[in-house]
């Protein structure tokens, strides 16, 4: 079927069918006028390629190019690179100087491959999820004993020595080091830092479970120590969901030993322990980045809170202007997110303005969506959760489901705001505007007064180019804010 689709792209081809040469398929071909005499001698195991075109020359050209058509399919399906070793040993042979291995295989096999890499003296990033917590603990204990890092499992983002790994952005190199147990949190902070003119020395992901009691923050602490020892790192940023109390105490104890300034955001967690440890707490990812930038440039941070307040006032005025268009029946907000941490941050910000909202990963269990596909009142859905991603690409890559939902939400007369995150960088969809613009236009055509608010996590050096994406989304009628926090606040002011 894929080959048929590829053949149909050829100019002059009106129809094609690529099927096995079973008697039954031949009878269908006959009924549809596509059976030729040459097919009569074929068997169930032969592949029949039938093409209807304007003339025979076109058909001949298609057959002459059949190899490249097959290659196109393979390329589309596998996205092959120049070197594609089939095993860990093969990868090591093709790159003996490697000191880090990125593991992305089915979860049940990932631990085994990761251990192979560690035993070969390599740091490891495990992109795979579905690795048992027991295996994670074993790997991290072994790595710690050898002075190696294990980033993950389920670690989506890291920037090591300037190399973006997995989902990561092209950011400036600089003197700010990040340890994060949160992938999109790391991306948002590193992008804002870069967009503000500062840069990243290292950004080390640990995987979200690292800060849970069972793992005890083994890698979070190891990464923190590594950044403390790293000469290029002058400011350290910590990003995570709230760690387990025991882990938080260990992190606080480690921070106390560090002389470099440390900025920390434990999204939704208490700032008290952070402050006691001597680190600077922040309440949003944007604030975290701005504090880190000021510190990295040797500036005072006293003005940041008042600058953000001024920014909030401006957002409020923007909301007031937008409210003029809102119908009285439009009362709800629908957030459709691809980044889990951004989804959490938005819920926290909204809580302060409009209270808890429904979600498939709610802050308050009473607000659990019964069905993640069906929004209720104010709802924020994380399309990166398993119910949406098993068996299909991550929503940062494949916009299909979210686009469908954008149009569906716009058809609900009670919806005033659709809030979206757009995450750029390596690994993400290479042309998000081309994916989103038709859906946004359709939504605006259905509901012209609806506010579609986006944040873009990315930089102008990303392959997608943040500025280009912004221009295209705005051209479609979306409102693009400079951060997820700002986008969330604008949405909150409109709904409030």
């Amino acid at each position, binding site marked *: 079927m894929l080959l048929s689709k590829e053949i149909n792209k050829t100019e002059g081809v009106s129809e094609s069918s690529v099927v096995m040469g079973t008697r039954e398929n031949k009878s269908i071909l006959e009924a549809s006028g596509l059976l030729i005499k040459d097919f009569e001698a074929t068997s169930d195991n032969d592949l029949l390629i039938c093409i209807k075109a304007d003339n025979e020359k076109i058909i001949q050209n298609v057959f002459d190019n059949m190899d490249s058509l097959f290659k196109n399919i393979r390329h589309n399906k596998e996205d092959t690179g120049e070197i594609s070793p089939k095993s860990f040993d093969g990868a090591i042979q093709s790159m003996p100087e490697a000191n880090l291995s990125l593991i992305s295989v089915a979860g049940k096999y990932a631990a085994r491959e990761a251990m192979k890499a560690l035993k070969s003296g390599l740091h490891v990033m495990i992109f795979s999820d579905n690795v048992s917590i027991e295996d994670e603990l074993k790997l991290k204990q072994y790595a710690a004993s050898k002075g190696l890092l294990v980033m993950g499992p389920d670690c989506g983002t890291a920037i090591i020595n300037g190399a973006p790994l997995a989902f990561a952005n092209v950011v400036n190199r600089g003197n700010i080091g990040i340890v994060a147990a949160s992938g999109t949190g790391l991306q948002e902070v590193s992008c804002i830092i870069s967009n503000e003119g500062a840069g990243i020395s290292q950004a080390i992901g640990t995987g979200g479970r690292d800060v849970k009691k069972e793992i005890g923050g083994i890698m979070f602490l190891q990464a923190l120590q590594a950044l403390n020892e790293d000469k290029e790192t002058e400011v350290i940023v910590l990003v995570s969901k709230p760690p387990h109390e025991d882990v938080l105490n260990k992190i606080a104890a480690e921070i106390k030993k560090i002389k470099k300034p440390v900025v920390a955001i434990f999204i939704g967690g208490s700032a008290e322990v952070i402050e006691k440890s001597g680190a600077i707490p922040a309440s949003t990812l944007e604030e975290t980045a701005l504090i880190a930038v000021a510190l990295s440039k040797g500036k005072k941070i006293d003005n940041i809170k008042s600058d953000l307040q001024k920014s909030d006032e401006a957002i409020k005025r923007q909301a007031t202007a937008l409210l003029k268009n809102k119908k009285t029946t439009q009362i709800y907000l629908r957030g459709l997110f691809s980044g889990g941490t951004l989804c959490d941050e938005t819920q926290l910000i909204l809580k302060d303005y409009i209270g808890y909202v429904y979600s498939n990963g709610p802050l308050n269990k009473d607000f659990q969506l019964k069905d993640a596909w069906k929004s209720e009142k104010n709802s924020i859905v994380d399309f990166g959760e398993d*119910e949406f991603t098993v068996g299909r690409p991550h929503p940062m890559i494949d916009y299909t489901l979210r686009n469908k939902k954008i149009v569906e939400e716009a058809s609900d007369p009670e919806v005033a705001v659709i809030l979206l995150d757009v995450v750029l960088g390596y690994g993400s969809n290479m042309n998000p505007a081309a994916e989103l613009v038709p859906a946004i236009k359709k939504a605006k055509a259905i509901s012209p007064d609806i506010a579609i608010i986006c944040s873009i996590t990315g930089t102008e050096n990303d392959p997608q180019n943040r500025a280009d994406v912004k221009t295209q989304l705005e051209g479609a009628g979306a409102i693009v804010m400079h951060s997820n926090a700002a986008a969330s606040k604008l949405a909150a002011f409109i709904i409030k």
Partner: protein
Amino acid sequence: MEILSIGDFFTPGTYQLHSHFSKVVNYSCNKNLISVVCSEIGNGPVNIVVSESGNLSDEKIIISKNKISGDTFSIDVSNANCYNSSIDANDIRQIDIDFIIKNLSPLLIKNASELSLTVLLDDSRRINFSSSFEKEFLRKMISGAEKMNDAHFIEAIKTFAGCGFGLTPSGDDFITGMLNALFILREISGNKNLDSLRNKILQEAESENIISSNAMKMAANGRFHERMKNMIFALSEKDENKIHSNCHQLLTMGETSGADMLTGFLYTFVVENRFNYFSKY
């Protein structure tokens, strides 16, 4: 190459290379098939899961009880992880047909690829069949479904078998799913006549296409690929999250194969629910 696990339904013999894909290498011996697959494809009754299937280029491999060998390798498998492809009747007796229909139908209709046989569950998908081959194929498949509705099962199988897209034609995948469902219905109803119906269906549907014939043979024998087995357990446990994730896993099989198989599986339950043909067969 390292063997991670092996299936439990191999026939020993000397197998010749049949077809080579990036993640699957098939070998055949008479009417038997074995598939050397990478971990992403997963376990199956005749699958050998290896660490690097794409590298395997041996023209033949020899399967014996304790050893698998080729031109370039010889591996002792006496202690290899063995995948159990059968399903214990006690694990599925509580399966609820209403629940299956209610939960699986919307998932399939929402996510199956456009030209899959899910069209038999949702008329609005007919619009996707636009070329003359597709229209004629659709006409035939609808007629097959109508024969099932009229309890003319063997006639329905004759209509479905060998028809449609893919290396395993859509109709064959549908029959594989149907055979899987009939196994479950046999276990929950205790109706032994369904064993003979499964055999009749297999006899009617088998063809020279060794890959789809093999899949149907496994299904008729109550043997399941890991993805299908997981789905059946999820349905038995009524675990909606697992149903969701397993459905998506199955839908990634081929362009339409997973969807066609799930449609055959579900359609059999729909027919049973409406007419009780199978429990009374």
